[in-house]
């Protein structure tokens, strides 16, 4: 099952569902690790931290600042997201772990975490390979560059596992528009929404989680009735997400990227699924695209064939971003 991101509409019970999913998976015998973005990870115990201090310690000394203790940086915006992302990636590489559930909180919080994990490795990589790195005066330049490289690798790995993840989105009955918008954010960063959990459905509707085909959302929908005060958590929720766990277990692993390339005459068409009505901007720097969807940005490395092409144009069609590329005659003499 690998990595399952859980996010949803604020206040709809995202953390309860995430805890219930983890509980339900353990009940079915899956070794399941659980991460919650709202819980601050222990910085000092993380290998990301030691590499970060090795890297930035040099910069801090250059600036004349004294070394910092891990606790002094607690609460620094984005640091929590980076450390947690690296810990998730590290946990996934453990052969004894069947699945990792990552509670990303509300869609807004999820977008912020995913954006940080997307942009920081890119920024660090540019600094490492840029002209600033040449001017770095370090007592042991090789060790600094090595720590820097390890840091970029940790974070790039987190970005990769997100690219192969599935997501479970949570909302209430009236949240269809917000759920669609949230799924667009998750898709932007490469996570594939697998199912929708409509939480806190009144007793008058449905009492037990059951599958529905919801044409608006385009995914299997499971409904959980509103809990009474007598119902214990998270075991109660776990029993309601039984069908969700079965569905996630039956889905094949994600081995191919979420985008497609199609040949069109002399050119190529790149298609990325986002959401209908998304406000999208696209920019290019060399081999990378900057995709901005509803205010969230993702750096997208072009597939090899498109690196040698010019981006001629594109646009949104029915929730898909479609971009047209033609071979760049300067670097591709032969016609494809």
């Amino acid at each position, binding site marked *: 099952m690998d990595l399952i991101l859980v996010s949803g509409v604020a206040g709809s019970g995202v953390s309860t569902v995430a805890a219930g999913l983890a509980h339900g998976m353990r009940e079915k015998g899956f070794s399941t690790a659980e991460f919650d973005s709202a819980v601050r990870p222990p910085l000092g115990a993380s290998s990301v931290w030691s590499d970060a201090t090795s890297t930035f310690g040099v910069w801090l000394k250059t600036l004349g600042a004294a070394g910092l203790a891990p606790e002094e940086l607690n609460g620094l915006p984005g640091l929590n997201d980076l450390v947690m992302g690296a810990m998730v990636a590290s946990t996934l590489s453990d052969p004894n772990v069947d699945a990792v559930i990552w509670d990303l909180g509300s869609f807004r919080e999820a977008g912020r975490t995913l954006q940080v994990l997307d942009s920081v490795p890119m920024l660090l990589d540019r600094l490492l390979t840029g002209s600033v790195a040449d001017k770095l005066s370090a007592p042991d330049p090789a060790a600094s560059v090595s720590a820097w490289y390890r840091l970029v690798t940790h974070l790039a790995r987190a970005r990769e596992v997100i690219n192969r993840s599935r997501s479970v989105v949570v909302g209430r009955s009236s949240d269809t528009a917000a759920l669609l918008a949230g799924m667009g954010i998750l898709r932007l960063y490469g996570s594939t929404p697998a199912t929708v959990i409509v939480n806190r459905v009144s007793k008058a509707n449905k009492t037990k989680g059951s599958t529905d085909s919801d044409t608006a959302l385009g995914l299997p929908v499971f409904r959980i009735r509103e809990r009474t005060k007598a119902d214990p958590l998270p075991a109660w929720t776990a029993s309601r997400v039984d069908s969700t766990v079965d569905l996630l277990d039956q889905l094949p692993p994600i081995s191919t990227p979420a*985008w497609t390339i199609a040949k*069109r005459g002399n050119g190529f068409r790149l298609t990325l699924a986002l959401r209908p009505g998304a406000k999208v901007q*696209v920019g*290019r720097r060399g081999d990378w695209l900057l995709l901005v969807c509803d205010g969230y940005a993702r750096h997208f490395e072009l597939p090899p064939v498109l690196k040698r092409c010019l981006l001629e*144009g594109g646009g*949104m069609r029915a929730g898909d971003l479609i*971009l047209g590329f033609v071979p760049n005659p300067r670097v591709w003499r032969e016609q494809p």
Partner: protein
Amino acid sequence: MSAKTPWWFSEGESESKGFDLGAKGFDLGGLASGAHQVLEWARESLITTHQGHVNPVDYPQCFMCRAVLLLHPATSSEVVTEEEGFAWIELDPPRD
């Protein structure tokens, strides 16, 4: 913006996921091997020697320093790495 449907919205031909469609079937092994040897030679004889040259003006015998001076004015006090430009792409209006 033209009302005509651009080619990237047209249908037809095959789709693929993650394949390099530009890859050709013919063997480039021999050519690649030769190119690799040339690159190795260039790396050894040009780049490795050049790595210690801080100011290209001081090393007129170095091929790489001469190339750098050709690309940048001799009056420049330091070598500036050229940035790859960033450009926004103009997108078509959304279609259903």
